[in-house]
């Protein structure tokens, strides 16, 4: 048990929630999602994201369409599905609960 391990586990737990949050605001290219997550220091390397996006897509929480690009091959443009929005709401509630729990323990 070391701190790095626990920290990365916590980050992993939050990753899917954060992806859904990002896409709730606006649809985005994969590269945009990566950039934002890297800015937020949630991921370090890009490769982490692709299996995750595919998994979310396969669970029908996300969908994508191919958008032509002027420079290079067409790219995937991800957006949240209805099912994804319901899922996100559930996650927000449980995140809030978790937050409350931690605050409660912290302050007592």
């Amino acid at each position: 048990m070391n701190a790095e391990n626990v920290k990365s586990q916590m980050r992993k737990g939050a990753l899917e929630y954060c992806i859904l949050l990002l896409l709730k605001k606006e649809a985005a290219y994969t590269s945009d999602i990566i950039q934002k997550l890297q800015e937020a220091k949630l991921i370090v390397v890009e490769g982490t994201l692709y299996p995750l996006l595919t998994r979310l897509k396969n669970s029908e929480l996300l969908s994508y369409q191919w958008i032509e690009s002027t420079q290079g091959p067409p790219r995937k443009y991800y957006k949240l599905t209805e099912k994804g929005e319901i899922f996100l709401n559930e996650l927000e509630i449980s995140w809030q609960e978790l937050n409350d729990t931690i605050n409660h323990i912290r302050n007592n």
Partner: protein
Amino acid sequence: MKKTLTVNLGGTVFHIDEDAYQLLDKYLSNLRIHFGKEEGTDEIMSDFELRISEILNERVRLGNEVITIEHVESVIKRMGKVEELFDEEPVSSAGYKQTHHTADEAGKERVSRRLFRNPDDRILGGVCGGLAAYLGWDPTPARLLIFLLMFFFGIIIPIYFILWLIIPMAHTATEKLQMRGESITVENIGKTVTDGFERVSSNVNDYISSGKPRTALQRIADGLVDILGAILKVVAVLIGIILFPPLLFVLFIMFIVIIALVAGGVGGGFGLLYHLMPSADWNMLNQYPEWTLLIAGICTVLLIGIPVISILYAVCSRIFKFKPLPDGVKWALLAFWFIALILNIFFVVRYGIPFWGDLNHWHWTPSCWRNIVQMLQV
């Protein structure tokens, strides 16, 4: 000057250096092995390829006509090394680690180790490395022990070479896992392949190896092993030089004997038999037709010759790295041998053993033995 290849990566054509191509190819196949257990592997892989293609495309637009190994290295750094990705991987990582642990614990009890020569940890033939893996030791003490024993028990040296000949090399990932007694799972195979990859590439680029610094002790041990390896190799060469001429001589003699047997043919063979066993009733031969004797002789030569030559060839191919015989030839030899065997049995049953003669006339007299001894002395 470097050779370049043309590849289609995510729908874009790139010119890529050969070494860069190999690195990228290994990286992608390692990823595939790791994702292999998941659904949607193809899609994940095509995402990876598309992204890599995008990044490389930027390079091309900046004026790099050819993708070099540095470009690929920076791409891998950006995408994440295989080990990084699979420590960070969200869903499966917890499960992965758990199954890994249980597999390790259960593996130690259940999976029986198999003895292989270790190709990844070898100085001479990998015998010590393999033995160490089999016994669960560190290879260095095993080597030191063998090396020290060598001074007290000279027999260790030929035993080493015999083990080298007999124990097979662990070639596949499965065999390497069996060698270490780890259970054969997709994760473990993937790990083995990745490990091998890192070991290969660490000679050229150290960026992909897990940057653990080597301690002074390890470096000293490495140095010792290197020196030991050099000494062992010198010893092996010396032994080889000493053993080689007599070995060659023996092989040469055997070859000559076989040639003589075939060339001398039936007549020579029977002459030899006649010389060995003068008391046999050789006149009996006259009552058989000549072609029977000829065929019987050829069959006898084949019956003895094929196994002898095969064994010789097998030994030679191990020592001198001959190509093994093609399967067709092996089957043909086996078929000939069986035909010879059947025909011989047929002749024995049909005619009896000709030179046996009348059993009443046949005595194992001292003179007979003397003849045999004389023959051997010649």
